[in-house]
């Protein structure tokens, strides 16, 4: 039986983590390669890198990071942030990432999904969706949550699946940063109505929240802060989930 994946997310700017990660003994790690290796050793099922570099130079550095990570960890990892063209996707994949994640660029140019899937296979294409609660459901927002669109999140999720996305990384703008848990209503709505795996993102503050996400239908559970600040190790998270009868890889 397929295990629920636990995925730590690392934000990188110009080749450094935006916030240092405190592993055991409060050693502050700013090197994304070292942080990835630590999570690999703790039993992460996958790692997500989000590149928030604003400059072309920052993106070049990110590709170096990807190449180094690919030599050190032997689990899948994805890279998102600033990927706008099939050429950008190719650079990231040839540097050794398993998957690329596209978000705003896919909203602006949906054919990027189908072109990426055709060129590299659906399994390489993760579409990130940032969703915001509105009076009649959920709306897609882009540019890191700053710009609203008039697109309904469920309609968009079904469209990206039809276009050939391999997975959806579903982030709740309302829940993100609250530490109060995933938006379970959003998660249920999307995961019950699309045929491709859904990664839950945004809002995890404790292990119970991971359990709630798994129970609401998420195929994979993404979290950042609870792992970065050493509140819990990946292994502790998995042991907790297993104690609740969720299938995890331990």
């Amino acid at each position, binding site marked *: 039986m*397929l*295990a629920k*994946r636990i995925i730590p997310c690392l934000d990188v700017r110009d080749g450094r983590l935006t916030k240092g990660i405190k592993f055991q003994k409060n050693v502050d790690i700013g090197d994304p390669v070292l942080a990835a290796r630590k999570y690999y050793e703790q039993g992460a099922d996958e790692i997500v890198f989000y590149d928030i570099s604003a400059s072309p130079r920052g993106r070049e550095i990110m590709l170096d990071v990807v190449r180094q990570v690919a*030599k050190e960890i*032997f*689990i899948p990892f994805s890279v998102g942030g600033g990927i706008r063209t099939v050429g950008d996707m190719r650079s990231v994949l040839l540097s*050794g990432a398993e998957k690329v994640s596209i978000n705003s660029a896919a909203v602006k140019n949906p054919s990027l999904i189908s072109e990426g899937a055709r060129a590299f*296979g659906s399994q390489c294409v993760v579409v990130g969706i940032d969703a915001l609660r509105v009076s009649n459901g959920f709306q897609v927002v882009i540019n890191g949550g700053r710009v609203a669109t008039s697109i309904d999140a469920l309609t968009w999720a079904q469209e990206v699946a039809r276009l050939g996305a*391999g997975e959806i990384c579903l982030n709740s703008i309302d829940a993100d940063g609250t530490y109060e848990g995933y938006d379970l209503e959003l998660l249920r709505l999307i995961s019950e109505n699309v045929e491709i*795996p859904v990664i839950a993102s945004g809002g995890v503050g404790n292990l119970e929240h991971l359990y709630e996400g798994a129970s609401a239908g998420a195929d994979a559970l993404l979290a950042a802060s609870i792992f970065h600040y050493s509140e819990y190790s990946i292994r502790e998270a998995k042991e907790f989930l297993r104690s609740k009868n969720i299938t995890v890889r331990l």
Partner: protein
Amino acid sequence: MIQIIDYGAGNLASVANALTKLGQEYEIISSPIELRDDSKIIFPGVGAAGSAMAMLRATGFDAVLPTITRPFLGICLGMQLLMPYSEENDTACLDIVDGEARKFTCDLKVPQIGWNTVSQIYNDPLFAGISDDAYFYFVNSYCVETPYAISQTDYGYHFASALKKDNFYGVQFHPEKSGEVGLRLLLNFCEL
């Protein structure tokens, strides 16, 4: 020496990185004339059966691979291509191992993406030091049914997650993306 077959279908970096980590000598070859008599062969698969077979025919690998007598490991699509036939793109394949590659018909999400358990049917040297029901990383929409299965995995129903016929091995999962267990399996293959 390990030779990794590059037939233009995709990215071989992760297999190469894993072999480097294991301290194994390897080279990537793109033509059958580069095949050596003393190498083991890794045959990664990326993409779809139809285009992969077209590229194998264009490079001439399709005629040579069935004649190889040294240890051979097909990964993912590389395992499916060992079959006589794949439902994917209605493709005639290499016909090295009896069986068939079919699309998943379970009501679970397809592709299967993630970590699943591999139940060993035989104590094969490929699985030396790897516990039964260990987790490996899978990404597949098609799966193999074959009398030559050496392990099986459950995704709505059981399919062959690894096979062996003579010197030919196939694994449906990605050992190069399956953590330390996957590295061990690759090492086992390199040391056959």
